[in-house]
Structure formats: C-alpha cells, structure tokens
C-alpha cells in the first residue's frame, strides 16, 4: 500500500493509512526522502490520524525519517496521533523524542510556518 504524499507550497503532506506493513513503511521512507529532495521542501507533515497501532517498528521508522529529512535541512512534524495510540505508545516506552508532534494538520502547518519563519 502506498502512502500518498502531496506538495503544499514549501511543505509536503504525507497521509498514512491503517494497515501499513513493515515493507510499506520502508517504501514510504524512501519515497518521502526522495520527494523532499525533488521538491526542495522545507518541511514535512506525516499525518497518522488513521494509524490505529503504533508499534516499535513504526516508531523507529518515523524517527529515522525525521532524522534523514533533517539532514536535508527540513523539519518533520508528526500529526494526528490518536489518544489511545499515544497511551499505548507511552506504555511501551515509545516517546518519539526528538521528533516534533502536533495535534492535527492545522497545528502541524502552523508549527512548520513558525519554524521556517524563525530560521529564515
């Protein structure tokens, strides 16, 4: 299953769906980095609203994505983590530290705007 990645000005918005296998996640990682380079994006939003389970692999992959995108000089924000998913994550000890998070798409965009203004 492919994750749709849309361009919105300087930013990219990727919308993750529910049943993503490990392989799908790895493909996504490659596709996203590729697109960041191609579009010279300044920021990326990964919307996980539909993700019903965030396990250790998903968490690790998202952190790797953020790291790789940072190397390209861009900022990543994870948005839409569901309350129950957040609860399960902290039980497992997955805190997504060093990755920015926001409530939803609107907040995520606001965060990226703020970030790019302050570094501009």
């Amino acid at each position, binding site marked *: 299953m492919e994750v749709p990645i849309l361009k919105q000005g300087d930013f990219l918005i990727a919308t993750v769906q529910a049943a993503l296998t490990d392989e799908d996640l790895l493909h996504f990682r490659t596709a996203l980095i590729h697109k960041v380079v191609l579009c010279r994006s300044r920021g990326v939003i990964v919307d996980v609203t539909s993700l019903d*389970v965030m396990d*250790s692999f998903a968490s*690790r992959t998202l952190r790797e994505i953020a790291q790789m995108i940072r190397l390209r000089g861009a900022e990543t924000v994870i948005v839409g983590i569901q309350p129950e998913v957040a609860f399960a994550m902290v*039980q497992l*000890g997955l805190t997504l530290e060093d990755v920015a998070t926001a409530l939803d798409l609107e907040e995520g965009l606001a965060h990226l705007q703020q970030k790019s203004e302050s570094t501009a």
Partner: protein
Amino acid sequence: MENEIQVPINSDQDIVAARQKGRSLAAALGFSSGDATLIATAISELARNIITYAKSGEIRLTVINGSARQGIQLVARDQGPGIPDVQQALRDGFSTSGSLGLGLPGVKRLVDEFEIASVENRGTTVTAKKWKR
C-alpha cells in the same frame, strides 16, 4: 464469534493481520476502544519478535472466562533460538530508541497477566491475558 483464532506468523504482513484480528475480537467482546488498541499493540510487538528472532511462529487468540468477567488470551509461540536469560529480558529497560531488545517489559505493561517460557534452541512461548474492565 469464534472462541479461538490462530494466525501463522511468517511475514510482516502477518503482523498486520494478527493485530487486526486481535482488535476485531476485542471489539466483538465489548472491550473499550482503548483496551482494544493495547491488545492490538501487544500482538504487534509479540508477532514482530517472532519474525525478528525466529523467522516464523504463530499467534493464538482465545476468549477466556474468569470468575466475573471475560478476557482475551494471546499466545505467541515460536520454535526459534529461545531467550537465554528470560529474567534479564524482562528486566532490561525497553530503551526509548525502541531498537534494543525484545521490548518485553513494555508488552507486559500493556496487558494484565504475562508469562513467558523459553528453552534455548527449542523456542519461546509468551502467554498474555487482558481482561475486560
């Protein structure tokens, strides 16, 4: 509604299948949405361990009846290399990088009861239970 579901775990797609089946079963039994997420997450981690360390195995989901309530039992079984020091595995903090170890202490926090039996070179069986609140 079936009383027992068996899911073979041989690939990463099976991880997704197993946790989705777990969620459906939990929902059918009337577990809260939050608890169903905990169950699905636990299944995902246990299935993942099977793939990572044993290449293949199975997850068995069973409806169980306690003295005053119902619950789900998860059994994750493989015939892999086994865990040399189970006590240590249960003690090691699941590091926040998420990349070290089996994450067993983490899975333990997701469920109500947790047991693990492992024999070197023979395999590992994890049995976990979550009761409906």
